[in-house]
């Protein structure tokens, strides 16, 4: 009997041990508690962060289930850290514009500015200077300086789970409308900066998307080093 009891003890201990192993060893994600889902711009050192930039959120589904928005771009000035009214879309007041996953630069077919961009693989901090032989692309609709399409430009679309994720390790190097330089990293595409779980419902996935979070470092003096 004693043996039996001690065995039950061992058994219970191992069950506990197994349960203890459950602990999540992925790094804990400190959700930005100040992020309440509204648009916000703030600067820390040389880096400006933008939260919840709404980029034509989904207002309905087509009969075959394709989501659609109002089809309007949201314009943003990197030089002034502010949103720009869409009535100024034909001016050089804005540097980049967002609609769904499409990002415009104030260049070519998109605007009158001297803008442009290219996507470089690496980390935001790792990009210390724009190399001299870099080629800035300009917009020539339907081809844009920041390539559209899953896995091609800045994001990945998972068709099975219906989720869009900014590709990690992509720095968008931007030439502003006035010809100055910035490096930019898109950090999230969903409201409050949190990508829904793959298991989340369709409503959360559809209505939570098209909320950009990104950070950038702009060199007002026209320098190519950061």
């Amino acid at each position, binding site marked *: 009997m004693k043996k039996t009891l001690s065995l039950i003890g061992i058994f219970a201990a191992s069950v506990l041990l*197994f*349960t203890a*192993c*459950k602990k999540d060893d992925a790094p804990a994600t400190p959700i930005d508690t100040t992020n309440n889902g509204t648009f916000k711009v703030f600067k820390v050192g040389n880096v400006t962060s933008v939260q919840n930039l709404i980029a034509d959120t989904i207002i309905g589904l087509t009969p075959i289930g394709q989501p659609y928005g109002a089809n309007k771009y949201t314009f943003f000035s990197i030089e002034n850290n502010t949103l720009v009214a869409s009535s100024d879309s034909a001016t050089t007041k804005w540097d980049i514009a967002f609609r769904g996953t499409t990002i415009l630069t104030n260049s070519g077919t998109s605007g009158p500015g001297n803008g442009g961009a290219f996507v470089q693989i690496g980390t*935001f901090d790792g990009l210390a200077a724009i190399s001299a032989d870099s080629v800035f692309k300009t917009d020539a609709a339907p081809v844009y300086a920041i390539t559209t399409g899953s896995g091609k430009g800045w994001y*990945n679309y998972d068709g*099975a789970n219906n989720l869009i*994720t900014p590709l*990690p390790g992509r720095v968008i190097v931007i030439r502003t409308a006035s010809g100055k330089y910035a490096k930019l990293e898109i950090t999230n595409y969903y409201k409050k900066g949190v990508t829904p779980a793959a*298991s989340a419902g369709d409503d959360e996935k559809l209505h939570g998307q098209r909320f950009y979070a990104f950070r950038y470092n702009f060199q007002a003096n026209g320098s190519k080093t950061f």
Partner: protein
Amino acid sequence: MFLGVKTTLQHNKINALKKLMFIGCMLISFINVTAQNEQPQDSTFSKELNEVVVTATRNERKLGNIAVPVTIISQKTIQQAASVRLKDILQEQAGLFLTSGFGTGVQMQGLNSDYTLILIDGQPLVGRTSGVLDLNRVTLGNIKKIEIVKGPSSSLYGSEALAGVINIITDKSFDSKVSASIRYGTYNTMDANITASTRIGKLGISGFINQYNTDGYSIRPYSVERSKLPISKTTPQLQLNYPLSSKTNLNLSVRYNYEYIKNELAVSNNGQIVYSKGREMNKDLNFTPIINHTFSKKLKTSLQLYATRFEGSQKLDISGGQGYDDYFLQQFYRVENQTDYTIAKNISLIAGIGYLKEFVNSSRYDDKNSRKENEVKYGFVQTEWIPFKKLTFIGGFRYDDNKLYASAFSPKIAGKLILSDKINFQASYGKGFKAPDFRQLYLNFTNTSAGNYSVFGALEAQHIIEVLNNAGFIKQYEDDYAKLQALRPEYSNGFNAGFTAYPAKKIQLQVNVFRNDIKDLIESRLVATRVDNTQIFSYVNIKSAYTQGIETNIKYILTPNFSLNAGYQYLQTADKDELKKIKAGNFYYTRDANNYSVLLKKSDYLGLPNRSPHMATLKLIYEAAAQKWFANIRAIYRSKWVVFDKDGNGIYNKQDEFADGFVQLNSSAGVNFKKGFRVQAGAENILNHVDVNNLPNAPGRTFFTTVTYTLNKKIKQ
């Protein structure tokens, strides 16, 4: 001096020779000594070691003499665990990981369920959906035992036996016996079995029928969607045996399984709830006539015919919407001859030839009336050599000549050394393959309920995409479009090595280390994007991967009545291309807690998704004297597993989304009364672990009770 040198050389040579001879003599005497150390007959484990296994070598061999990893699940184990479907008992094995999606599948040695061949009495079950053979299709009501062979077994079984083989062996006794059991439990789940067998003159007859019903359940709160749908399954089986003479035996088995599933769903579409009604039917027929003939003690042969068909249909009607009508029919016909020949006392040989033909019709392909077909001619040979009493070698190969794909050559070699009654070693190498299936060649599927993405089979994809492109529907061809070509079989090279030790009289320790290198894995890849941004996928031979790990099992007989069984598997997997890129550096990135990109560390890489690196089982079993009653408690542990590439870097790493690890606790107890009555009751998932998304096939805590009656006496003829 010259001579002296020569002499020295000779002397050295002689010395070396002497040494060699000495070592040789030592070895021989050692072997002679150990040869006398037969597996102890009175050992606690001798009964188990003397159990006959047929799956590993395709002839009858004692478990204790088999050189490849084999697990036997006995009828008693199945009964005491109160398992009713194949899934129930397989989930209690440490090295097997059950998957959900297209039914319940089984991962073996970290390989997907596509790569495990499932046999009933040595004949393959067909009718896989997306590579998964639903383990719920098989009742355990008349199962004598289940043999699980791990490691590539294509040398004997051909395609699909890449990770291993699970052979379900039905009870083929023709004693005069009637047995009936009924089990009832939570969710109105009922499982009833009737078995009757006898011999009329020389003719042995055994009949069996199983009926399984459940109301199903919903583990998703506030939803009419059923996690498990109401199902009714009926499985009758008839087995006949007729000895034509003392040397010739005729056997016939006919088995049928019918499943009917009701599905009532509420789908939310753009804020509107759409109600839908679905009906699913699966019919599974196996027909197996076999003639065995024994020419002499040394020579016997068997001619096996096998015909099977699996027919599945799914209909969905949606209120005011577009439903679907899915149909799948697979037919499989095979004729096979196997001859066993004992060449000498210590050398035996088996050789076989076979021909199989397969047909598939499906609405998942271009047209359900267009029949796809394949045929395979094959031959295999295997020899067993026992140079010393305690040393066994097995070598063999199989050649499959495939009509639709490249032919496959699958060798296997294995050895076992029984060093002493305390320890024995075994090692094996085998090559396994899996031919591309019809789905990978002909699928024509568009998911209208999620994202409108399409998957086209490799044989059709290029043509369909070209037609779409000419009609202006294609926005762009993706990089992997160029890789579309005729599919080749997927290959693996599998190594297993391990030992069984008896550190104490009542303790058995088994350890097996495995490594499977798989190449030409067929994966679905994005090949084109439509103008409306919906994605088109197809299949390409693209991936190389490995799975490796260690599996251990400890049995401890504490008292004659009380035993403990603990199993553990550690698993590592990797996609070889991904691993190469990570090692080269500057290719894969992930995100830190602030969503900022950082370079991925190799230590964060997890390899293939949907696999638990740690799996364990712990079972405590008590059996009263004279089998009056028994009780057991069984714990199953699975560590968390990665399910979704959350950071979008294309690979699976620690920063991605996981399913929670869990412990499932099951318990059951039973009493054997006089006159053949047995009553059993139990609870499953006592800790009530529920995971709506990742374990849709696992209900919360459930209870059951079973009553069995067996009448076992001679019926007057």
